[in-house]
């Protein structure tokens, strides 16, 4: 009975693809989310995931890989933000808000021009159930590239997030890692876009890391947990979506939010209950 419940979705090819793709996306977004959370880049993640829209559309029209278009516009938005911030008295969060909505609006305008070929709702809310083979290959390739770079240079990224001053003092080029991390974020935003849509990508890019951060004080465990949470939420979300016949992207993100909510209350050391408990013991 339960076995049947568990295997039923796998009899449909579109479900198999959907689950596998969202697990890959969950893993890579989970890994990246740790750095986003620790670096304090949640808003930056939101900005880049929106700013890639015009790039995705142009790439689609020109028949180029979507990741390439996203990369150009993601990095372009970051450079624009950095330039305006350094040259004017406007504060960073304001600049981010202006630039990413501007890029996003450009994307919407472009989209209305090429409406016949791309469906707006698929981009905004994801279309993991109807994803094409090409999209799957592109997502898997960009995910493998991102994970490989993150793991090989894990310690540099960690040091860059924790203490960039020390990194510079031992001759590490922190600018390189700054832009490398932002580039990986742009690449991953496209992968996440296909699973849950452009509006919810930012959840994939911060929630697992935040949940894991409540659960541990070790970075390697945080990384493993965040990836596990990302993948688990992808699987559970797909099942919920399958049986209740509701939006897949929304389900994946809801599961992640639910897990975060549980951690907020029940995390063994940093949860609200644990803090109350230890406060009492101390008395």
């Amino acid at each position: 009975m339960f076995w049947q419940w568990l295997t039923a979705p796998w009899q449909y090819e579109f479900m198999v693809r959907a689950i596998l793709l969202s697990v890959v996306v969950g893993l890579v977004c989970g890994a990246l989310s740790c750095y986003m959370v620790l670096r304090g880049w949640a808003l930056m993640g939101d900005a880049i995931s929106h700013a890639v829209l015009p790039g995705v559309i142009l790439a689609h029209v020109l028949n180029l890989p979507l990741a390439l278009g996203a990369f150009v516009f993601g990095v372009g938005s970051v450079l624009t933000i950095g330039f305006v911030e350094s040259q004017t008295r406007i504060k960073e969060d304001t600049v981010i808000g202006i630039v990413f909505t501007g890029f996003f609006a450009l994307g919407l305008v472009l989209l209305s021009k090429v409406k016949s070929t791309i469906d707006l709702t698929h981009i905004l809310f994801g279309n993991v159930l109807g994803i094409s083979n090409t999209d799957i290959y592109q997502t898997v390739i960009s995910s493998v590239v991102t994970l490989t770079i993150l793991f090989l240079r894990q310690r540099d990224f960690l040091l860059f997030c924790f203490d960039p001053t020390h990194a510079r003092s031992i001759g590490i080029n922190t600018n390189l890692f700054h832009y490398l991390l932002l580039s990986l974020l742009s690449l991953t935003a496209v992968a996440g876009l296909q699973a849950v849509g452009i509006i919810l990508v930012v959840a994939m890019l911060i929630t697992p890391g935040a949940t894991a951060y409540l659960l541990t004080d070790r970075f390697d465990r945080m990384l493993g947990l965040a990836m596990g949470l990302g993948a688990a939420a992808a699987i559970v979300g797909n099942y919920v979506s399958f049986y209740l016949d509701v939006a897949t992207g929304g389900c994946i993100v809801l599961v992640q939010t639910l897990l975060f909510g549980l951690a907020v209350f029940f995390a063994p050391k940093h949860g609200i209950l644990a803090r109350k408990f230890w406060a009492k013991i101390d008395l």
Partner: protein
Amino acid sequence: MVTTSIAVENVTVAYHDRVALYRASLAIRSGTICGLVGMNGAGKSTLLKAIMGFVRPLEGRVLVQGLPVGAAQKRNLIAYVPQAEEVDWQFPVTVFDVVMMGRYGRMNWLRLPSKVDYTLVQTALTEVEMGKLQDRPIAELSGGQRKRAFLARALAQQAQIFLLDEPFAAVDITTEKLIIDRLLQLRQAGHTVLVSTHDLSSIKTFCDQVVLINRSILAYGDVETVFTPENLCRTFGNHFCQYQEGK
């Protein structure tokens, strides 16, 4: 032979339109401890940051062991101990992880620690008496323990030159004494140390030279000749002079 370890030549630094440091020149000898003394906002951190190349001077230049600072950093010649407030202490790393970061510059690009790296980290932890706390998350450290962890990271780096920004701020007397002992040991081994501090009372106990700073360098030289009430009065202003006369 007396050699110059850190040469600061006519350096001016401004943040936007405010001049933080005006035409500073120094030549710090190898194998000495130099104290950097001045009020809050007098430019102590700015001078250290200019030496480290973290701020770009409007004019002038800095040479470390005769090299531009970027080249000196690539050769791991300088260890910098920042003020403890400059990092996020809720970061999910242990004391051991932090000290190991001192070795990154000596590792290959994968940053895989060798046996030597492990040994040097252990030695550094023992030297600051933090061996027992090595597996503790840094979020659980006290103020003094944080400074010790940072000092251990600098020691593990095995640099020639050590720059310390306010290592004695908000630490207990045991930690202060421990830090001073380590600095004296470094001098013994021929290293050069530049340390900024508020603590005037301890200067004479461990510094060879002293720099008095207030936006520009007011006096610089051996402690006996420079560290005088008149000079301190010029560094800290009227309030300090009256306090000294009263005493």
